[in-house]
């Protein structure tokens, strides 16, 4: 994705508008399918958690948080498990398609957070959160974006790995051992879910901040009036 900028002549005033192709089809498709899967997995996961809303012993049981049913998917434990065990495959498949595509196309280079990006994180965070000056954009994604997107991929992988242990602590006993056993894996799975939700909230805020053209680029691939670089 080498983001060539094209000029689109407006039929109205003849002023050319710039447009840039940012997201190839595979990325857009896997993004949206994965987004739906993530939504279902969080919702059904919360319903599953309602069956035993604790991480301690069953006896005496102390509920950690009784999640309101309105935020849950599946209606009951068995129903929620059906949703979870169905959409986990969709989630894994789209994750693998995305990662495979990024590696195969070489696009990962523009989004993967690497050590040389570290020094750019603070200036960007200062700009976003503390009204600091905007650092000059030198790449498609700024260091903070790279950090966020790369973390999301790591969290996605962790959600799958911890989920595998919760589902199959015997067949994957070595993985369970690495995570400190089944009991802890259930806690990791829960915490990773919240970390993903936290990323998602930040992601949605940024989508709103960056406006319509940016949003549309995740649907059509094309972004009009891109920020000049």
């Amino acid at each position, binding site marked *: 994705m080498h983001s060539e900028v094209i000029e689109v002549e407006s039929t109205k005033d003849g002023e050319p508008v710039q447009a840039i192709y940012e997201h190839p089809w595979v990325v857009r498709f896997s993004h949206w399918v994965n987004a739906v899967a993530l939504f*279902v997995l969080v919702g059904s996961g919360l319903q599953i958690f309602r069956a035993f809303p604790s991480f301690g012993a069953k006896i005496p049981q102390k509920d950690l948080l009784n999640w309101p049913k309105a935020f849950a998917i599946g209606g009951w434990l068995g129903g929620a498990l059906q949703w979870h065990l169905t959409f986990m495959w969709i989630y894994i498949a789209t994750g693998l398609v995305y990662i495979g595509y990024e590696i195969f196309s070489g696009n990962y280079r523009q989004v993967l957070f690497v050590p040389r990006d570290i020094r750019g994180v603070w200036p960007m965070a200062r700009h976003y959160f503390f009204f600091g000056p905007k650092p000059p954009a030198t790449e498609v994604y700024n260091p903070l974006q790279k950090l966020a997107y790369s973390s999301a991929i790591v969290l996605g992988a962790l959600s799958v790995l911890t989920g595998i242990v919760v589902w199959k602590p015997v067949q994957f006993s070595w993985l369970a051992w690495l995570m400190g056993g089944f009991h802890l894996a259930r806690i990791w799975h829960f915490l990773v879910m919240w970390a993903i939700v936290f990323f998602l909230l930040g992601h949605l805020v940024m989508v709103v901040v960056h406006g319509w053209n940016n949003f549309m680029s995740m649907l*059509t691939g094309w972004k009009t009036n891109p920020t000049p670089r």
Partner: protein
Amino acid sequence: MDERKFKKMNRRELLKVAPALALGAFAIPKLREPLLKKGLDFSDWASGALFRPGHRAPTFSASDLTPFEKFPINDYDVDDPGVIFDNWSLTVSGAVQKPGDYKMSDIQVLPKTRQNTRHVCVEGWDVIGRFGGTQLSEFLKMVGADPTARFVTVECADDYYESLDMATAMHPQTLLCYEMYDQPLTREHGAPVRLTVPTKIGYKQAKYLTDLKVSHVLERVGYWEDQGYSWFYGL
């Protein structure tokens, strides 16, 4: 590029993402159930494929055991279906050479296995318990079960029922359990005999057994499975 051409290109690109809308099928009540059933069946198929007959569930030391009084009692109906122990026997039928009623003493002549294993409930809690009994594989050998049969189905005194795939039934840690914590099984925990299957989720490990059938075809799946839970649910 002129604007019309650009807009057309955008629409084409948008259409390419449209297949994602197929997920909307899950929002249609009529389609939802069969689709989720497919997902559950696929997960069960994957579970079966991932199951390794020789791979043992982790075992634990005595210090890891959950105290007996903190081992939860879960049942779908009653804690004690009132089995009369003196009259009790396990009725064996189906694809076996020696069908009939097997008394506790017939089971206890077989070698006893004791193991500290994790019991995982579908609700999310887990405990480590000490279980003693005879390997189901030994019992199946004794009754002359057809080695090509595919399922073992059990019926229980509380009308619960369950079934196991043959690979799991033959697993060395799958027990006809009659002891917990080196004491005879108590009524709430499934006396006189229950299944202990450390490679399966808790609800597969039926209590208060009365009947055992070896079969080539699965006739009775399981109480919770019939409510919509996974059949294989291997850990």
